[in-house]
């Protein structure tokens, strides 16, 4: 019984916003009090895909920043998580606390501080600068998730492989990597998603020069064209959902 209710609630939560956005994006106009749009049209979609909307450059900017963020985030998180999960050392709690600080600090405050620093090094208004600022939020999440994966893996497997004559690379390639691959996929996808949906950091560090999808979307939402905003919402959602779907099956085993 409770199961059915829960299933219905989840499906509703997942599907209804999508349907609403789809309907909005296809409505020519949808004024009070019509329950359904009286006239349907592809106007919003045509506009979104036209060069004038500059959606494609924003999509490319979002994508390149997200990839620029995901790779270093995972590369930094991997060794950190391995040590945090397997070793006991003095001040470990302090390290974990320091790691969590960027997550607990309001992004606005963190970004303002970074902005002052980036101004000095000429990193503002650049793609690299924006990607660096996204790393602040992504590295802690990626590290925490990978720490979970490592702590469920027995360090003795590595020792065993080494006893059997495997060198460092072979251990990594044939023992550690296959064992934490699901966790790695989840951590990478989270890093991607966090970067993908950043608004404030991109706005402040990018200084309006670096325009990503969230910035375009919010400006259309404030600008008042609801059909275009809805179509853009779906364009924005699609890659994120694709990434989330592709790692969903690892969530149970991997995390």
């Amino acid at each position, binding site marked *: 019984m409770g199961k059915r209710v829960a299933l219905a609630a*989840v499906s509703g939560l997942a599907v209804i916003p*999508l349907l609403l956005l789809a309907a909005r994006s296809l409505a020519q106009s949808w004024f009070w*009090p019509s*329950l359904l749009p009286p006239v349907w049209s592809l106007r919003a979609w045509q506009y979104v895909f036209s060069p004038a909307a500059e959606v494609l450059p924003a999509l490319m900017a979002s994508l390149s920043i997200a990839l620029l963020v995901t790779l270093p985030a995972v590369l930094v998180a991997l060794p950190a998580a391995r040590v945090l999960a397997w070793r006991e050392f003095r001040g470990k709690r302090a390290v974990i606390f320091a790691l969590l600080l960027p997550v607990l600090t309001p992004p*606005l405050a963190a970004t303002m501080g970074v902005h002052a620093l980036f101004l000095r090094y000429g990193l503002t208004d650049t793609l690299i600068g924006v990607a660096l600022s996204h790393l602040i939020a992504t590295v802690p999440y990626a590290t925490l998730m990978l720490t979970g994966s490592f702590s469920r893996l027995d360090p003795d497997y590595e020792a065993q492989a080494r006893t059997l004559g495997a060198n460092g690379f072979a251990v990594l390639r044939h023992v550690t990597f296959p064992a934490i691959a699901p966790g790695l996929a989840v951590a990478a996808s989270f890093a991607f998603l966090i970067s993908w949906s950043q608004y*404030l950091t991109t706005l402040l560090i990018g200084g309006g020069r670096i325009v990503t999808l969230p910035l375009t979307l*919010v400006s259309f*939402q404030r600008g008042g064209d609801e059909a275009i905003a*809805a179509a853009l919402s779906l364009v924005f959602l699609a890659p994120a959902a694709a990434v989330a779907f592709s790692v969903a099956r690892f969530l149970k085993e991997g995390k």
Partner: protein
Amino acid sequence: MGLREAARRSRVVNLLLQIPLSMPHPAMAGALITVVAPSGLPARAAFALGLIAQPADVPALVNDRYGAGIVLAYVLKEVPFIALMTLALLARLGEDYEQAARVLGASAWQRFRFVTLPLVAPAVISSSLLVFTFIFGAFEVPYLLGRPYPAMLSVVAQQRYLDANLATRPGAIALAVLSTLLTAALAWAYLRLTRVLLGLDRPFIL
């Protein structure tokens, strides 16, 4: 809890939860406006049924005094997040503890209160703390669904920071520092409170 039963059986729930999770906040806010705005779909249905005469007859939930639209948007976005975090832990714990309690004669409520709840408390507490701190400093949703004045702290700070008049910038930074301190204090109080209420020995972070 029913969700876990469902999740165990089907991949579908796991997949469905991904949609609101990956739904960008501004998109969720946009979808929400169609429903809760005074001219939203339920209000139109009420009009069609002759219950109301004009949009002004429904209570405003967008750009309203109490931020109801903001709260609703975040609830829709963050419930799946906490659910996924909790589900991951539950899947790892398995059913053995609950079955043991059932064998020993515990009722459904007792099993939940004394077995399952203490087991999942760490995941619920840490993920809800993450959600709390995130929302406290979040910007897009209050920007889109809130009132222009008095706006939420993060919106005020952002606007002063990006104001053409650079003299307002130190004030914005002061607000950001203030919100950091507030977050820290509230997070600490929350961890203390849950520790007392649930009798956990130490706050759960990792």
